[in-house]
């Protein structure tokens, strides 16, 4: 119940300030722009949207998701409102969940606003809409993973800029690890076991299979555990900071 109250407050705070609008507009411009330029949407006639559209999402999220999540706990610590939250009859988990879901909702809105591209492919051809839906799910899950990491970092610092830099670095790492060109280069200098380890923290493996319309249990488990561990870490850091 109180998680819902926190959720509402955070969400209205996003839309009371330019943050949400700026991020949504930039996301739409970038995702559409890349799709129609480098994605060569018109030429390759990729009706599944895998390469032309969804391919770009992790690259955009690694920069923009931290911008949405960076204020979640760092601002709270800088202004001292964390003391207010900590002395209201509210569990740390409700606050964490409320905040996290609010940030995720901003991204849900952003993703929902890309609907014209779905209409376009349906108009031009005969796409597999199931695969497109699963692509959206994959895209949203990557975004949620990055948000969870950003939230974890924001619990560590009261400085939003530090939080932004550190979380972008973490997200960039997760995008590069497992990206084909990168792992190929890595394979030349490192043993297969290391490459395997690096690939396993990357998002592509799990993202791609969802792009192809495959709903695999292992991907769901990977995303869920990454998010869960980050939120758990957030809770641990917040309570350790007080003692």
């Amino acid at each position, binding site marked *: 119940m109180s998680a819902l109250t926190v959720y509402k407050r955070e969400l209205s705070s996003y839309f009371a300030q330019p943050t949400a609008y700026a991020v949504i507009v930039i996301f739409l411009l970038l995702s559409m722009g890349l799709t129609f330029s480098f994605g060569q949407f018109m030429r390759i006639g990729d009706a599944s949207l895998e390469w032309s559209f969804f391919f770009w999402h992790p690259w955009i999220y690694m920069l923009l998701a931290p911008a949405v999540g960076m204020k979640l706990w760092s601002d709270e610590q800088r202004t001292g*409102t964390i003391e*207010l939250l*900590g*002395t209201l009859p509210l569990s740390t988990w409700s606050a964490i969940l409320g905040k996290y879901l609010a940030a995720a909702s901003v991204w849900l809105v952003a993703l929902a606003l890309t609907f014209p591209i779905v209409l376009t492919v349906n108009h031009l051809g005969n796409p597999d809409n199931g695969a497109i839906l699963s692509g959206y799910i994959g895209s949203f899950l990557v975004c949620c993973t990055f948000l969870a990491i950003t939230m974890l970092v924001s619990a560590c610092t009261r400085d939003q800029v530090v939080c932004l830099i550190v979380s972008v670095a973490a997200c960039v790492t997760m995008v590069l690890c497992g990206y084909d060109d990168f792992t190929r280069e890595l394979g030349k200098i490192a043993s297969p076991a290391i490459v395997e380890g690096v690939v396993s923290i990357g998002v592509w493996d799990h993202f791609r299979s969802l792009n192809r319309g495959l709903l695999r249990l292992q991907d769901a488990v990977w995303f869920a555990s990454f998010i869960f561990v980050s939120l758990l870490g957030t809770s641990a850091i917040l309570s350790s900071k007080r003692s």
Partner: protein
Amino acid sequence: MIEVENLTKQFGSKRAVDDLSFTVTKGEVLGFLGPNGAGKSTTMRMITGFFPPSSGDAKVCGISVIDQPRQAKTKIGYLPESAPLYHDMTVLGFLKFCASVRGISGNAKKDAVEKAIETCFLQSVAKQSIDTLSKGYRHRTCLAQSLLHDPEVLILDEPTDGLDPNQKHEVRQLIKRLGKDKAILFSTHILEEVEAACTRAVIVDRGRIVADGTPAELIKQSGTGSLTDLFRSVTTRDTEQPAA
């Protein structure tokens, strides 16, 4: 209603609060005095459940903040030292948010918010964004937040800090008025405030209680008829070396 039992807080090697014990009963307004860094805020943060104590316990209306933090927090109204607020909200929005978190809803919420706004003289700025308020109004908005659920225990950390003399006077009158049927603990380093609003006062220094009594008793104890003299003689000044 507030029972503090051997409360201790250790920050690394520094002992901010050292085996502190006192009680505040209903109808009592306890002034919590002490120089900066004496451990007043730390003590209050432990009683309100924000900091876990290193040892000891605090009970509010008989409920331990360590064993049942959620229940204890429902009994407390708390004004933190810096009067933190969500600057992107309006006064009304902020108070409604705090009321909802406290589980007040519907008409009860509307009434509670209205009453708190009235008590703290915030009518003229209720719809204004907190961003644009002057310091006095911000402080009172945070004070209003602590009164929403009509708590049995009020803990106010320097409630008159940064206010102008008129506002200080109003807040003191408010504390006095509320103190009739609540237990109030408030910290200050303004000594006149003790005589103006408290029924009892304790002076803490480096985490320990060094004087305790009604304002009249403390004045008597000073020997010179001045609280300032007592305060200066029982507390360590940060300009002198602490005794080894």
